[in-house]
């Protein structure tokens, strides 16, 4: 049974085709590179509607299947940018109606976790989901993915992008900051803000920009930004690991490709005898395969949505969704 997934919560749109056994037949995406400033929601919507038809064709070709072979369509229902989400929902409904197949809306953040579990074999991890638009520490408890800690203001990817834009390094900022950070080991004090299990990055951003304006070296600032922000992420993840007594940590989201963050997390996991997992790079950032796979899981346990119920959920919380398939994994784990 083949599911076609459409992702499009932010500036990236992606199509994925996955079967019910978890074989990924295709995963193709296209990113909008914002001209100036941040991502304008309507620009993202225009970009998605322009590229979705051609991406659909490419996905069919890569998977070696035709439209009529698709049995289910899934789409990212939220959280994300309203106009982008509504474009993806319209595309998904059109496919469902044209092919006469069922449709399911799924949660974007849970998509990241499930494709991580699928591609790494992690069973029941504490997930650190770090991307352009989200920063959350998530773990499964009582039939749902619970958010143990999250950013109280901007996502870490967004912070890196804003810093990079302000100092003239362009978009996306993460890779550029990482590149420069490797050239320095001179730490400049920057605000370290962890409140309970939550984090805050805007103070860190403003402080770094102010230091830049007063002449601090860009390499030193990139190094210090990473050390401060990543230490905050590791601390909150470590707390969740200790609290939940889980044995695995999964790093996902576009920021996961950062080597320094990975190294720091792996070191923390060793200290707790926990296993560290990370999906292959093409499944860390936003992609259609994660939506297709989560669509399979959702459909198998909960069945399809009615077309009229497929409106978007712009502030879709990770802990709003029942996760029946994890119960099975839990029982399997507790067998003597």
């Amino acid at each position, binding site marked *: 049974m083949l599911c076609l997934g459409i992702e499009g919560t932010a500036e990236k749109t992606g199509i994925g085709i996955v079967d019910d056994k978890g074989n990924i037949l295709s995963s193709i995406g296209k990113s909008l590179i914002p001209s100036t400033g941040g991502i304008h929601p309507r620009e993202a919507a225009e970009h998605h509607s322009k590229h979705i038809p051609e991406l659909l064709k490419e996905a069919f070709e890569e998977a070696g299947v035709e*439209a009529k072979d698709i049995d289910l369509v899934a789409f990212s229902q939220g959280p994300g940018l309203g106009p982008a989400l509504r474009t993806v*929902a319209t595309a998904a409904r059109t496919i469902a109606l044209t092919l006469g197949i069922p449709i399911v809306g799924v949660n974007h953040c849970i998509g990241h976790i499930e494709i991580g579990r699928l591609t790494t074999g992690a069973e029941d991890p504490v997930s650190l989901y770090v991307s352009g638009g989200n920063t959350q520490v998530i773990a499964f408890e009582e039939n749902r993915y619970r958010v143990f800690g999250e950013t109280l203001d901007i996502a870490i990817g967004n912070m890196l992008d804003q810093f990079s834009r302000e100092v003239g390094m362009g978009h996306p900022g993460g890779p550029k900051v990482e590149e420069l950070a490797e050239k320095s080991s001179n730490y400049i004090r920057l605000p370290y803000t962890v409140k309970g299990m939550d984090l805050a990055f805007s103070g860190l951003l403003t402080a770094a920009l102010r230091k830049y304006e007063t002449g601090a070296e860009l390499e030193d600032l990139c190094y210090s930004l990473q050390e401060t922000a990543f230490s905050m992420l590791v601390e909150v993840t470590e707390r969740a690991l200790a609290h939940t007594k889980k044995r695995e940590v999964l790093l996902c989201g576009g920021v996961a490709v950062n080597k320094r963050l990975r190294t720091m997390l792996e070191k923390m996991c060793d200290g707790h005898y926990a296993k560290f997992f990370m999906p292959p790079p093409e499944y860390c950032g936003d992609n259609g395969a994660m939506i297709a796979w989560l669509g399979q899981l959702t459909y198998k346990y909960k069945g399809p949505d009615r077309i009229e119920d497929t409106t978007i959920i712009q502030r879709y919380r990770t802990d709003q969704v029942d996760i029946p398939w994890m119960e099975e994994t839990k029982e399997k784990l507790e067998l003597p």
Partner: protein
Amino acid sequence: MKLQQIQGEFQIQLEDEKTAHIIWEAIKPEIENSPSTRSKMKIKLEDKTILLKIESRDSTAFRAAMNSTLRWIKLAYDIIKL
């Protein structure tokens, strides 16, 4: 622009009823619960023509509503024609 009021009626004629019906059903959920308070939209289907009515207090809201709706119609059409 604080003009009194701007409204438009659109007729989008498709080549057959099946195409019109799919597009109508695919975009209806977005039209019927659009978050914007600055414009009201209504949609109807008559044979192979989609009838759209948009009413707004200002031209920016009107253009936003119109542009997103026509974008969805074109997207749905391009997918059906794949």
